[in-house]
């Protein structure tokens, strides 16, 4: 069977996995050859984390069609839960870094999933911009609460307080979370390989969900809620499934992100972080998984590439963002695109098949 005979859906799935694996091989080879600068190799794990976040947010924004502005909140739930789990396990004497990460990631994902589910129940009653502002509000609330959490561990177990470290009442334990100062002394166990594996797992979960019966129901709700409801699809249930799964995946990505640094603070996971992830999703194309992967990777690297013009790099980033959004809608561009298309009219059907499938 030749590549052309495969169903477009399967082809796009294969392409998505191929992108990740090829990128992994390319980066590993380049790194071994010494082509990757220090600052860039420090970005590898965050890139993986952002790819996971973008793919999971795409499940909410692209596949389920809800604008969520609080994704960083779920990321932080995962990150801080993961740090606590890792702290406890280290204290219990677990030495394997891989096991430490896997356990933290699973618990972090579960915690974020549970929070996502609980947040989702009220949120899913709302629609459109109201839903967006409530997810924003939840993200800010999570950040604010984490700013007030003090958690430590000693031989007697976990200690929790909302005042200060002194009221934890510990003699010689380790303080895991220190209010606004965040989590300190994290074991840096995240590696690029772990990151890539997590990306593959995230992509697999999202793609499998999208191509399942549940996924088709979620997309039906997105395309026409009323029609979907009238054929017996439980709208709230399917929106909630997408939201909860996305939250759990964001939690796992949060663990990956946190364990790449020795310190993280709750204020890192603010509204701007959520917006950043949303930008990846929209630029990559909503509902398009490999688009999210490429745009998340590219946009994380872009400020790094612009480092020589340090002062102006965020300004240029902003201009690029505006231009990417505005230019396709300018009349001059549309005319030029039409002219090009009619010139290469033979190529048109192939292009339509590529892009048409991911469109709404």
């Amino acid at each position, binding site marked *: 069977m030749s590549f052309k005979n495969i169903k477009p859906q399967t082809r796009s799935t294969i392409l998505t996995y191929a992108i990740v694996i090829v990128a992994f091989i390319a980066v590993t080879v380049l790194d071994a050859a010494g082509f990757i600068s220090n600052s860039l190799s420090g970005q590898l794990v965050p890139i993986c984390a952002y790819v996971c976040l973008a793919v999971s947010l795409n499940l909410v924004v692209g596949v389920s069609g809800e604008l969520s502005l609080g994704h960083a909140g779920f990321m932080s739930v995962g990150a801080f839960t993961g740090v606590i789990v890792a702290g406890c396990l280290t204290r219990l004497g677990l030495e394997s870094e891989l096991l430490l990460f896997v356990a933290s990631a699973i618990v972090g994902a579960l915690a974020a999933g549970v929070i996502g589910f609980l947040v989702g129940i009220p949120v899913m009653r709302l629609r459109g911009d109201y839903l967006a502002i409530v997810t924003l509000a939840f993200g800010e609330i999570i950040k*604010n609460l984490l700013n007030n959490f003090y958690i430590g561990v000693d031989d007697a177990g976990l200690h929790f307080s909302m005042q200060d470290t002194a009221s934890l009442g510990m003699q010689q334990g380790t303080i895991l979370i220190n209010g*606004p100062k965040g989590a300190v002394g994290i074991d840096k166990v995240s590696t690029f390989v772990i990151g890539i594996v997590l990306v593959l797992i995230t992509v697999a979960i999202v793609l499998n969900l999208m191509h399942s019966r549940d996924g088709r129901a979620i997309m039906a709700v997105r395309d026409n809620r009323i029609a979907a409801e009238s054929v017996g699809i439980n709208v709230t249930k399917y929106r909630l499934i997408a939201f909860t799964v996305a939250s759990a995946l964001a939690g796992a990505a949060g663990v990956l992100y946190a364990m790449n640094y020795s310190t993280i603070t709750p204020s890192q996971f603010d509204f701007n972080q959520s917006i950043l992830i949303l930008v990846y999703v929209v630029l990559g194309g909503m509902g398009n998984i490999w688009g999210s992967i490429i745009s998340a990777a590219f946009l994380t690297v872009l400020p790094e590439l612009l480092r020589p013009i340090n002062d102006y790099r965020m300004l240029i980033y*902003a201009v690029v963002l505006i231009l990417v*959004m505005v230019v396709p809608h300018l009349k001059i561009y549309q005319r030029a695109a039409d002219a090009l298309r009619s010139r290469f009219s033979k190529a048109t059907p192939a292009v339509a098949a590529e892009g048409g499938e991911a469109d709404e």
Partner: protein
Amino acid sequence: MEVLANLINGMSLGSVYAIIALGYTMVYGIAKMLNFAHGDVIMVGAYICFCAVSYLGIPVIAAVLLSIVGCTVLGIVVERLAYKPLREAPSLNVLITAIGVSYFLQNAALIIMGSDPKSFSSIISLPALQLFDGRLTISATAVLTIAACMIIMVALTLFTGKTKMGKAMRACSEDRDAAQLMGINVNSTISMVFAIGSGLAAIAGVLMCAAYPTLMPTTGSMPGIKAFTAAVLGGIGSIPGAALGGVLLGIIEIFARAYIGTQLADAVVFAVLIVMLLIRPAGLLGKNVSEKV
């Protein structure tokens, strides 16, 4: 007495939110877009006023006028360059563009003015009001802020209700296509709304920095988000709703700060919003529009 003082502080802060929220809500009503750059226009307005007073030595009133004019022009230019090409685009694209504009304004301010906070030494030099034998002190800034909010509120209501331009705005927000068929110039109406909204943001910026005198490139973002919350709380698209939502949010925030703790004040504000939206999904004064099939 402490409760009363908090109430007045809350109303003063709430009036600032209300003025910003008015800009948000008008733009949303007519252009159906969340203008995330609105908060940064506040910052620009405050910087213009700051520079005019401290570097050029212009009298305060002239500086405020200059900042209003500057922000109005900025609003129109941003609308023309960034939002107008996207009239027919999906709303998420417009949202991302607005975020881009927000980043742009913040970073431009960072390059021009530097990241160090500027101390916006009080530009309102009137004596504070003493009531009940000096047991209650109301700062002149608070009085002025509340008064400004009320004047703006009344003026806007009259403007949208009585004038031809105002009626055109309401028509556009009701049904843009029908308004166009009736001979209303939709593009210039939308520009007008952006101009008014940005002018209001300049006033809000000056008033906010008179009360909380530190000015940074990121000064506008949090009040922007809170004002957006206020607009939603009051029912987005509704002018009285925005004013009511803003004042309520300010009062809740100040009381939460005083009685629950500074750290958790923001969480309380957002929690109130969530509870509110669950009870009345369209906001306090918003209309609940049922979907047509």
